[in-house]
C-alpha cells in the first residue's frame, strides 16, 4: 500500500502541540514538524529520540586533549626542551601546570568544531544542499506538521487535524 504524507499548516504552536499529543495517544506517528522557532518539548511529543551529540562531544574532546598533549610534548619537551620558569623541563609531568590552559583550549576547540561539523553532516546542512523544508512559510510565521499514513486512515486523520486547528491541509 502506498504511503500518503499529510501536510498540515498551523498558525500557532499551541494547537499543533495539542494535535500532536492527540495523534500520539491514538498511536499515529508524526513524521516531522517544521517551525520558525524551537518549540519546547516538541521532540518528546513527536517521538524524536534523545540526541547522541553529547557522546560525540566527549569523544572529540578526548581527541583534542590527546592531540594538544602530543603537540606540546613534541614541541616543548622532545624536540626543543623549553625552560619554563627556570624549572627543569625534561619531563612532561613536571611542567604540566603550564600546559593545562592549552590542553583545555585544544579540548574545547576540537569538541566545539567536531560537534558543529557532525551536526552539519548529520542534518546535511552543507553548502549547496537542497532545502528539506517543504514550505518556505515555516521560516516565517507558519507551523507545518507532516503525518505519514495510508489511504485507509487518510480521512479520519484529516478530520482530526482539521479539528485540532490546522488552517491548510494538503496531500503529497
Amino acid at each position, binding site marked *: 500500500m502506498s504511503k500518503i504524507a499529510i501536510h498540515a499548516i498551523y498558525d500557532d504552536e499551541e494547537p499543533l502541540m495539542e494535535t500532536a499529543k492527540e495523534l500520539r495517544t491514538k498511536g499515529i506517528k508524526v513524521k516531522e514538524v517544521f517551525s520558525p522557532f524551537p518549540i*519546547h*518539548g516538541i521532540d518528546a511529543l513527536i517521538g524524536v529520540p534523545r540526541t547522541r551529540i*553529547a557522546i560525540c562531544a*566527549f569523544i572529540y574532546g578526548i581527541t583534542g586533549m590527546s592531540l594538544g598533549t602530543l603537540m606540546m610534548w613534541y614541541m616543548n619537551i622532545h624536540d626543543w626542551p623549553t625552560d*619554563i*620558569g*627556570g*624549572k627543569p623541563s625534561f619531563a612532561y609531568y613536571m611542567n604540566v*601546570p*603550564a600546559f*593545562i*590552559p592549552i590542553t583545555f583550549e585544544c579540548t574545547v576547540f576540537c569538541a566545539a568544531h567536531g560537534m558543529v561539523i557532525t551536526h552539519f553532516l548529520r542534518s546535511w546542512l552543507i553548502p549547496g544542499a537542497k532545502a528539506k523544508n517543504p514550505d518556505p512559510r515555516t521560516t516565517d510565521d507558519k507551523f507545518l506538521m507532516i503525518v505519514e499514513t495510508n489511504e485507509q486512515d487518510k480521512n479520519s486523520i484529516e478530520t482530526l487535524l482539521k479539528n485540532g486547528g490546522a488552517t491548510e491541509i494538503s496531500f503529497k
Partner: protein
Amino acid sequence: MNNLNYIFTKKTKNITFGLMAIGIISIVAGFITDHAPEGVSHDDYHKTRFWANLLVNGWFFMGIALLATFFMAVQYAAEVAWSVAVKRVYEAISSFLPIGALIMFLILLAGQFHLHHLYHWMDPEIYVKTLADGTPNPKYDAVITGKGAYFTPWFFWLRAIVYMVVWIIFQKGFIKRSIEQDLIGGTAIHYKNISKAAVFLVFFAVTSSTSAWDWMMSIDTHWFSTMYGWYAFAGNWISAMVVIMLMVLFLKRNGYLEQVNENHIHDIGKWMFAVSFLWSYLWFCQFMLIWYTNIPEEIIYFQDRLHNYGYMGLMWTVFFMNFAFPMIMLMSRDSKRNYFFLLSVGLIILVGHWLDVFMMVMPGTVHGNWHLGWLEIGMALGFVGLMLYVIHSALAKSPLMVKNHPYLEESIHHHV
C-alpha cells in the same frame, strides 16, 4: 498539596543533638589535650591546633550560610523562576548566618585578646622598630608594618562588624519579606526584593573578597594573592550548593516538596557542576601563575602546602576531589537526575571543600604539626550538628512551599 509543613522529628533532632554532643566533647577534650609539639615552647604555642580547627569550621560553616544568602540574592536579582520551588530550602540554610557569623566573630575576638596566635599581625610588638631602650626590636617585621594601616585594630574590627551586621540585616530582611509575601501577595514585595538583592550583591562583591583577606589570607601575613578572595568565595559557594542539594534530596526522600521534580534537581546539579569548575578555575589560576613565575615571596605559600610540611598528598587529593571527581561524575545528564549519585558525589565534594579550608588554614598556623584525627573530625561533626539543627528548625518554621510568589506557577511547571 500535602506535607507543606515540615516536621522536625524527634529522631532527626536526636541525631543533631548527638552530633553537637560529639562536637562539644571534642572541643573540650581538644582544648585540654592540645599541647605544644616537641621543639615548641608552651608559651609560644597558644593551643594553635585547637584554635586553627575552630577557624576552619567557623569559616566553612559560616560560608555555607553566607553563600546561601548570596544565592538567594542572585535568584532575586536575576528574577529566576525555576528555583522558587526550592526557595524555602536555601532560605533555611541561610538562616545559619547569624550564628555562623557570631562564632566567627568570637574566634576573631579570641585572637584580639591573644588567646590564640593564628593571626601573626595581631601581635602589637611586631610593629615596633626600636625598643624603649633604643636597641632594635628583634620581633620587628617590616613587611607587616607596611600593611599596618590595613591591620590597625579599629579598622579591622570596624570592617568585621560592618560585614557581619550588613550581611545579617540583608539575610533577615529577605526571610522577613518572603514570609510577608506569603501573607500579603502582590508584586510590591517582589520588586523590593529585586532592588535589595542588587544592593546586597554589590556589597557582597566587595566584602566576600575583603572578608577572605581579613580572616583567611591574613594567616599567611607576608603573602598575598589577588585571586584569593574569589577562590575562597567559590569554595564557599560550591559548599552551599551541595548543602542545598542535600537538603532538597533529604526532603524529597521524606515525602516533602512534592512539586519539586527531577527538573529542579537537575538544575541544582548543574549549579554544583558549574561552581565546581569555577572553584577549580580559580584555584588553578592562583596556583599556575605563582608556580610559573616562581617568585620567592609568592611561592612560599605553595612551598608550605607542597614540600615543607608534608601536605602534598592532601593538597592534590583536595584538588582532584573537588575538580576531576565532580567533573567526571556530574558530566552526564542522567547523573544529575539520580538520587544516589547526587547524594554520594555531594557528600564527597562537601568533605573535599572542608579539606580545602583545612588546607587554607593549617599550613600557616600549625605548620608541620597537622593532624586529621578525632579532634578535627569531632569538631567538624559538632558544627554539622549545629548547622543541621538550625536549618531543620528554620524549615519547620514556615511552609515548605511559598505562596503568592509571581514566578511560583512557572517554577512548578519547570521543564528542562
